[in-house]
């Protein structure tokens, strides 16, 4: 029986010829990536175990991304300083602090950690975005500490589902609309639990690397545990530039590999969608919610904080103003993207439009910035739309593409971006 990409990566990490979905195997990851939020817990657990350092520090990546602002009323400054103390004490190298990094999803790709065929344990399913470069994210939780100190852990080999994408996106349609179509069909079901979702097809080949990452970063909401895709020349060129000689292994799913589920989407069938609160499956065409007044619009989160996302927002905002009464926050995904956005003039477009550009970080998506009051409404490119995530339990969070969010910011109400985009 043939193997899928995920099975091949797991086989390599397990030192095996092949693995079968459902079986329990021990794997040694190429990297374990974590963030600062868990640091107090990691420190406690290391004390409990009597361990003072990581088994193989070069295989661990730690990033400050959720709490880049240590605001009044948070306890984040203590958390950050404790982590910095550890880094200093142990000489730990792969630490990416505020101002040096961005979201760990992007740190992994920009710094060449995410390379084809590598197995990565992380503390978040959205880091599946690294699958755009052929690396397999296996999300766990604070349990990342286990592989940090032992360099191995068990997993149950997941089934793979395959979604084949064809066609080309129409006017005003964005990769987020594909995400939303998949969520509409799968988020209220458990069909993709706990699978690896493999995206394939000519529609994927046409997507930019930024958009591929965005697509995989959202696979979790459709139910998948992780996600991946084949790497093509475009992805390999990016990897080779950043790998700096570090090894990687290009895998493709075998022709006779078994997929537990198959589905297909034609990009030309999509139109701009909006996900209405409070669940991911509440996906409607933008026309159905058009006109709903908003208080806040945000572009950011690991779903939409790469350069193409900022360009899309800027395409709408150029020469326009954010509506009176609407606050707009924009969070670039990394220092690198922040710098590129500045060089391209995107930041000027945003500031002239009246938007607030934050420093790279999870920021508004983590819910501690841009907090919503009772009955307030936001539209965002965030990952989540459940009650209470962005402040009040009674606030409403709609989700959409950077086009939809920017168009809504300008109109002061949920709006169809096609009316503002040049043909």
């Amino acid at each position, binding site marked *: 029986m043939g193997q899928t990409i995920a099975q091949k990566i797991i086989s390599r990490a397990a030192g095996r010829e092949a693995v079968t979905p459902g079986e329990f195997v021990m794997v040694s990851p190429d990297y374990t990536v974590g963030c600062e939020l868990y640091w107090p817990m990691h420190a406690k657990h290391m004390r409990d175990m009597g361990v003072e350092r990581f088994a193989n520090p070069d295989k661990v990546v730690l990033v400050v991304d959720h709490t880049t602002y240590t605001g009044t009323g948070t306890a984040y400054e203590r958390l950050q300083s404790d982590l910095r103390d550890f880094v200093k004490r142990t000489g730990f190298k792969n630490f990416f602090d505020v101002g040096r990094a961005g979201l760990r999803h992007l740190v992994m790709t920009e710094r060449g950690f995410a390379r084809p065929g590598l197995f990565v344990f992380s503390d978040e399913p959205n880091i599946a975005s690294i699958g755009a470069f052929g690396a397999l994210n296996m999300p766990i939780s604070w349990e990342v500490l286990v592989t940090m100190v032992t360099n191995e852990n068990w997993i149950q080999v997941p089934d793979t589902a395959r979604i084949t994408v064809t066609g080309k996106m129409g006017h005003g349609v964005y990769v987020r609309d594909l995400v939303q179509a998949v969520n509409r069909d799968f988020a209220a079901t458990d069909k993709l639990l706990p699978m690896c979702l493999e995206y394939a097809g000519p529609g994927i080949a046409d997507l930019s690397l930024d958009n591929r990452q965005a697509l995989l970063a959202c696979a979790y909401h459709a139910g998948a545990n992780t996600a991946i895709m084949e790497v093509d020349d475009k992805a390999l060129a990016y990897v080779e530039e950043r790998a700096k000689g570090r090894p990687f292994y290009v895998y493709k799913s075998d022709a006779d590999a078994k997929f537990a589920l198959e589905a297909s989407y034609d990009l030309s069938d999509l139109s701009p969608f909006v996900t209405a609160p409070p*669940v991911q499956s509440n996906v409607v065409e933008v026309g159905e919610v058009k006109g709903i007044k908003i208080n806040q619009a945000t572009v950011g989160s690991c779903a939409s904080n790469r350069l193409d996302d900022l360009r899309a927002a800027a395409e709408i905002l150029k020469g326009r103003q954010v509506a009176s009464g609407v606050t707009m926050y924009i969070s670039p995904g990394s220092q690198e993207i922040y710098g590129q956005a500045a060089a391209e003039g995107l930041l000027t477009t945003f500031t002239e439009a009246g938007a607030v550009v934050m420093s790279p970080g999870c920021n508004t998506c983590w819910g501690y910035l841009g907090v919503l009051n009772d009955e307030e409404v936001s539209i965002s490119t965030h990952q989540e739309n459940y009650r209470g995530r962005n402040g009040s339990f009674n606030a409403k969070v709609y989700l959409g593409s950077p086009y939809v969010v920017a168009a809504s910011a300008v109109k002061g109400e949920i709006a169809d971006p096609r009316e503002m985009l040049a043909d």
Partner: protein
Amino acid sequence: MAGKYRGRVWKFGDNLSGDDGILDFSAVRDHSQVFDAKTLSKMCFATINSKFQEEVKQGDIVVGGASFAKPAHDQVVVGIQAAGIEAILCESCEARFVRKGFNIGIPIIVCPGITELVEQDQTLEVDLAAGLVTNIDTGVTLETNACPDRLLEMLELGGVIPYLAQHFDRGDGNKDSPPRAAG
């Protein structure tokens, strides 16, 4: 006996969110401290079943539907365990959620058919090593996957940290070198 549980069932439906259902996100956002299990325990299921907080007893069992507790940050299972629940069975859930339970010493078992097998307030018996789940009230038994030995031992020791500490101590005894997990 390791891996054996018997208790009153608290039954919940499909698509019950962990972060906006079992708990709410206010419990999650402040990750800055090691979890306050007692506070979390007082929150869990409070808005879903008003009887839960009043009547839950140590050793009770939670039975969930499809996509149980998705999404759930780590606080969710910490809260459920601290409320007294000793085992969770559900139709389906995230792979990650299963790990979050075993890591702190509470088994989470994906067991298709569990919602048909048992009703609220009935008594359930679970034998993880044998892979058997029995409704004591009806006498009907459901077979499920047997739990791997490593996970049973983790449960017995109270989670992955004591498990690793134990295996480390059985090794070279040098607290300065990292522990090796047993395969």
